[in-house]
């Protein structure tokens, strides 16, 4: 008889412990207290291995992405050898990874020390991140090493604080079939009107559609081109007051121009449902003559193992067109790395963050073409983008990126961005399916007003 109440009590206690264990998150640490000081080497790493034997965990995804693979390999080979710190890169599938960012930054899971996030997540993630300004200053590092959109993303909407350091980023570009442009005697268009005229000539050339658009739903990918057109025409997604600003005459004109690429038949009808992957695959499979996408795609487009053989040797790249008499403003996309508030190894994490985002580390990787699995053209430091050797090894793409990024922007850094992005990508998709542009934009603006005031 006595055993039963005891067993029930034990079960109750276990349950209570489990529940309390679930509810209490790890406490926050202070980065400045955790960072050791002392002499440093040429990469800014502390000599004397003050964190020897420390194991840190980095929340990331996409382990096989060439840049990530290269960084991991170099970490083991060089960083661990120099510091004694071992680094574990978590390889989480992309969708789960996005949820995990939220779990670690907002809820404070306490599993990881460092986190990598795509720019749009910055405004939501920053409540779980350590400000980096002071440790960067002490380490003689500056966010000015990077282009304007990368700096904006690093500040995550807070003008006075840096929450992450860019380590992967790109400009948005026009990729095209070089031979077709040469055959037609064309050079990449400077304005959207010129581009449309060129599409007319490219349509059906060599059996391929003129252009691979992306008008489908999927993580806001159908907004990349639209936002670039909008900004370049002097309109905006949100105005300085946070109100929708895309229903102005300039915004409507930009949207009409964007939809015309599909409605006038230059982009395949199927692209109403295409995401970035579909449109780039169409280009890789020799079915379209041009596509807008991120600079890193050059690594894939020029790899005969990944694309049709005739495509690999025939790729041209140029900045996105703009509007006559107006500066071209495109989307500069970046991934950032920061230190989690809940990390118990913030000193070691900062050592790694310094090293992994160091311009020399990045340069070494961009120059190393010995293994196709780790060969990458991705560089985010302005100095590396302008480096002649880096350019020579990477299709002269970095300097083109640097030029485009000078006037580029990041997405609006507001915690409402995920909802705003959802409303806008649905609106673009509806317009691609024939909905009236003015009506759809007005309704989207109303929806955004409602959700931001909630």
């Amino acid at each position, binding site marked *: 008889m006595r055993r039963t109440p005891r067993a029930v009590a034990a079960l109750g206690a276990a349950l209570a412990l489990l529940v309390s264990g679930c509810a209490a998150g790890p406490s926050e640490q202070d980065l400045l207290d955790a960072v050791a000081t002392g002499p440093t080497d040429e990469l800014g790493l502390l000599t004397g291995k003050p964190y020897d034997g420390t194991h840190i965990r980095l929340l990331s995804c996409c382990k096989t992405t060439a840049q990530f693979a290269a960084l991991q390999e170099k970490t083991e080979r060089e960083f661990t050898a120099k510091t004694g710190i071992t680094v574990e890169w978590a390889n989480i599938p992309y969708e789960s990874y996005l949820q995990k960012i939220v779990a670690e930054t907002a809820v404070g899971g306490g599993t990881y020390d460092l986190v990598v996030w795509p720019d749009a997540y910055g405004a939501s993630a920053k409540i779980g991140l350590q400000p980096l300004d002071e440790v960067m200053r002490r380490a003689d590092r500056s966010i000015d090493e990077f282009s304007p959109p990368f700096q904006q993303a690093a500040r995550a909407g807070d003008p006075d604080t840096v929450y992450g350091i860019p380590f992967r980023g790109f400009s948005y570009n026009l990729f095209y079939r070089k031979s077709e442009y040469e055959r037609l005697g064309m050079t990449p268009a400077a304005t959207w009107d010129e581009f449309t005229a060129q599409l007319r000539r490219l349509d059906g050339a060599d059996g391929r559609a003129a252009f691979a658009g992306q008008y489908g739903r999927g993580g806001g990918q159908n907004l990349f081109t639209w936002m670039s057109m909008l900004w370049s025409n002097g309109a905006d997604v949100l105005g300085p007051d946070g109100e929708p600003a895309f229903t102005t005459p300039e915004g409507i004109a930009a949207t009409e121009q964007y939809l015309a690429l599909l409605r006038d038949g230059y982009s395949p009808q199927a692209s109403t449902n295409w995401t970035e992957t579909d449109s780039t*695959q169409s280009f890789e499979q020799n079915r379209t003559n041009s596509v807008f996408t991120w600079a890193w795609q050059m690594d894939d487009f020029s790899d005969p193992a990944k694309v049709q053989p005739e495509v690999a040797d025939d790729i041209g790249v140029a900045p996105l067109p703009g509007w006559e008499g107006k500066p071209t403003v495109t989307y500069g996309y970046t991934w950032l790395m920061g230190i989690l508030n809940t990390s118990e190894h913030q000193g070691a994490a900062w050592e790694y963050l310094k090293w992994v985002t160091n311009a020399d580390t990045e340069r070494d990787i961009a120059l190393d073409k010995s293994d196709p699995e780790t060969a990458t053209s991705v560089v985010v430091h302005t100095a590396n983008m302008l480096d002649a050797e880096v350019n020579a090894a990477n299709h002269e793409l970095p300097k083109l990126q640097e030029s485009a990024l000078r006037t580029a922007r990041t997405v609006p850094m507001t*915690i409402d961005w995920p*909802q705003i992005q959802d409303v806008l990508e649905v609106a673009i998709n509806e317009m691609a399916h024939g909905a009236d542009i003015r009506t759809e934009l007005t309704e989207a603006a109303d929806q955004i007003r409602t959700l931001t005031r909630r």
Partner: protein
Amino acid sequence: MVATTVPPPRQRSRLRKHAVPYLHLAPALLAVVLTTVYPLVSALITSFRHWRLNETREAGEFVGLEQYQRVFTDDTFFNSALVTLQFTVISVVLSVGLGLAIALILNNRTRLSALTKALLILPFAVAPALKGFSWRFMLNPDTGVYDQLLDTVLPFADDINWLGDPFWALMVIALTEVWGWAPLIALMLLGGLNSISPEVREAATIDGANAWQRFWRVTFPLLRPLLLIVIFLKAVFSVKIFDQVVTTTGGGPGRATESLNFFAYSQGFTFLDIGYASAVSWVIVLVLGVLATLYLIAMAKQEAK
């Protein structure tokens, strides 16, 4: 010293008799409490609070029924409810109809029927997310094998953008579900068909009934209780549709394939509005609760027979 009263031996034995089964069940009950009851109760409490994860780590103030009021005034929620209803009707009708047809064909024993029955389980074994990816790839207008096959067999289908047209996109998601479920339902119904005495059908044949009359007047009425259970079971799973929506259409075109679960997921994990997502989830739980109750009633009636 505190005096303790010890129950008499007979009472002790009765207590042990009642307590022991519950102790044996305790680990399973604990698992259910931790994985089902606790999240449900927690979500119910959260649904009455304001909590956006990107604003604060802790749940905010109690807002009463505000989140539920928002649910029932949210056009996108009603759109999702309608999409889910349409999807449920299409997928239940097609899965059960096709499953019944397959079962009737396989009920005629042939050399191949045993092998076919074994193969039938395979589509159900494919992960739903993988089904979605595969169908998306196979229906790609440029490179998809299904698209090209359909264009060859049905020339009018050449102009159809399978995943870009609201009607066809929903149909495609329903078909990915039917592809997995119809064979499983066929196996379930085969069990039912085998339990019907051949003598009943033989008697009907002797009385002059043709094949259709034998099915409609003899087989179908005897199979009806099982069919009812299958329909409720399939309906419950259809209301929960999520994986294929994510991997096939992402909810598009527009919001034409946004199911209730996709809507709840977006509110919680994309928009980080945990309070609202909890309220939406509880509405879904109630809908599923009604369906599950109907299913249990049907089961009970079947067992009573």
